[in-house]
């Protein structure tokens, strides 16, 4: 019931909000939806099938190029509705996924991952030299043609077409988990040997899981091509492959919506942070490491933990420690941001050049204050903030753990020793 309500609220926001946003945000939301679908497709293979692909950019990219070729054909008079372009991505994704999966699934574990990595790197290396298929180094570009009475000229139109595709695709991926084959996928992840001895062919099963995962990755890539109207060989790069791994783990691979959440959070995070600092990848990396260390089931895992325990947690008493821990986290983050900011300034080429030429250490600024980089205080303040924040969080761990261990809804009298014990 609550779940349905939440889904309706999310849908209402996704439908109603974008017209009131600027172009930058509209594009970011489109990217967010595409990333969410890509992560959900990736996690079909990783979270449900237990197969970690390090080369999912391959199927994403092939989907993108398939759609671009179709768009070019439409420009040349081929009759095909623009809104259905991602179908080309789905088809090429499925076929290439079945082919790649056939080889990759012959191995398990690390070797599986390495085969997927090698296949993607192969494409990344070949694509810039393959003029006809991938447009060489420049890549392919095309234009969205009007169809079905839609112009496809504005970002908003693209957003709504993307939204429809992503909602339907994620819905299908969820439906997958409810089918017999979806259950077989989970069984395979749990215990491949047992699956074999119960009469299932694990290799064929894996190839099909791989194919379906690649198919929806191809849809995501196709949506990206449709939105950007261009793609080049860089779409096959390791950065794209690892981004989806990162998003999936940050969101939480053990829950169906975890990767969707991770992709959404990190896309928006990147959009906001990359405007402010070139060190956004560092922050993303730190976030990833912290989540892996302290919340291995990701953001969704943490949320699920609270939902599962919602009836027994003393919420009123938790508010204080949670607020303090959050404040401490903010203090540590402030210190970290200052430190990174100084480093960025002091190690910038222009700054180094001035130091080398004039021996001049210009002041660095943070929070409207100028700090002398040669003064130890400049560096001690952020360090102190980081230490203070970490100590604060550590101090809150005990009380929070204690509140989590509180037995549920026991009347106060029951917890007291019986006065007339026999």
């Amino acid at each position, binding site marked *: 019931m609550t779940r349905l309500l939440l889904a309706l609220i999310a849908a209402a926001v996704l439908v109603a909000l974008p017209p009131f946003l600027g172009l930058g945000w509209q594009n970011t939301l489109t990217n967010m939806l595409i990333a969410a679908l890509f992560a959900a497709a990736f996690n079909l293979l990783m979270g449900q099938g237990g197969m970690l692909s390090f080369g999912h950019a391959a199927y994403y990219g092939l989907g993108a190029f398939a759609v671009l070729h179709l768009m070019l054909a439409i420009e040349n008079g081929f009759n095909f509705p623009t809104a259905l372009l991602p179908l080309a991505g789905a088809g090429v994704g499925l076929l290439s996924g079945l082919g790649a999966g056939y080889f990759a699934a012959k191995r398990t574990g690390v070797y599986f991952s390495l085969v997927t990595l090698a296949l993607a790197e192969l494409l990344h290396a070949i694509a810039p030299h393959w003029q006809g298929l991938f447009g060489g180094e420049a890549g392919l570009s095309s234009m969205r043609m009007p169809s079905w009475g839609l112009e496809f000229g504005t970002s908003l139109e693209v957003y709504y077409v993307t939204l429809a595709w992503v909602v339907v695709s994620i819905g299908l991926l969820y439906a997958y988990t409810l089918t017999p084959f979806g259950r077989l996928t989970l*069984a395979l992840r749990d215990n491949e040997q047992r699956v074999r001895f*119960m009469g299932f062919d694990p290799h064929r099963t894996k190839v099909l899981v791989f194919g*379906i995962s690649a198919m929806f990755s191809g849809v995501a890539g196709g949506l990206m091509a449709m939105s950007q109207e261009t793609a080049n060989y860089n779409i096959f790069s390791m950065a794209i492959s690892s981004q989806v791994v990162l998003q999936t783990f940050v969101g939480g691979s053990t829950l169906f919506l975890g990767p969707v959440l991770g992709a959404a959070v990190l896309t928006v995070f990147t959009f906001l942070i990359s405007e402010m600092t070139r060190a956004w990848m560092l922050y993303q990396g730190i976030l990833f490491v912290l989540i892996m260390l302290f919340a291995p089931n990701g953001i969704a895992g943490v949320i699920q933990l609270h939902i599962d325990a919602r009836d027994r947690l003393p919420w009123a008493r938790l508010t204080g420690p949670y607020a303090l821990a959050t404040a401490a986290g903010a203090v540590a983050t402030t210190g970290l941001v200052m430190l990174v900011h100084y480093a960025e300034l002091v190690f910038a080429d222009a700054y180094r050049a001035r130091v080398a030429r004039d021996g001049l250490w210009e002041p660095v600024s943070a929070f409207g204050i100028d700090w002398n980089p040669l003064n130890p205080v400049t560096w001690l303040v952020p360090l102190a903030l980081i230490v203070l924040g970490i100590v604060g969080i550590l101090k809150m761990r005990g009380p929070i753990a204690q509140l989590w261990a509180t037995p549920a809804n026991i009347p106060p009298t029951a917890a007291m020793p019986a006065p007339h014990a026999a």
Partner: protein
Amino acid sequence: MSHHSHPPVSDEVLVIRDVHKAFGGLVIMRGIDLTLKRGERHAILGPNGAGKSTLFNLISGNFPPTSGEILLNGREIQGLPPERINRMGLARSFQITNIFGRMTAFENNRMGVLARHGVRFDLLHRIAKRSDINDEAEAILNQVRLGHRIRTQAADLSYSEQRSLEIGMTLATGPDVILLDEPTAGMSREETAYIVELIREVTTGKTLLIVEHDMSVVFSLCNRISVLVYGQILATGAPEEIRANKAVQEAYLGEEAA
């Protein structure tokens, strides 16, 4: 096909002829001959390292024999992959508990039922709507007396419950030949008695091949016994015959008595 052309074979469910197995230079099986008749409960006895688990792995397709043949209902199965052998009517359990830990007890059994119904690549139906399959999986769960654990994660079951579950999973694929590899390993006396009764119950009308160390289990459950020593069958016979067999006493039972 072939078992139609050889009607006399039909009473012999599983036939093992002169099976050898070597891993590199290490010879484990030195010519095994063994025949299981339909409906019998047959125990494999033998000291550690005699090759009991290897024999199970050869029969169930975990790896192929170096030479020799294995016939299931008259059809050659040596060298076939495990899933094919399973579909031909042979299912096994494992010495070390081998279940789907993150799925419920019910789902563990249902995987076997799905396989038996040939539902392997079905992406178009909701599994919840397949009441025939779900009812059958529940019936098997009740049969192995885990009906009260239907929604419990398999990893959260007690050890003996997991062993029961595994027997259920072995049954679920609908085999006529069942191989159980030390189903009572690591169990208390009461648990052992419980599992033996369960095995007796659920294997009625099926052919059972079981590896077991507990003599009381073997002698009470099985009507034929083969003693495997050093990769060869030393003797095969009814429990009394095996008990009386001099060679067996020297090679194996003597050690136990001492």
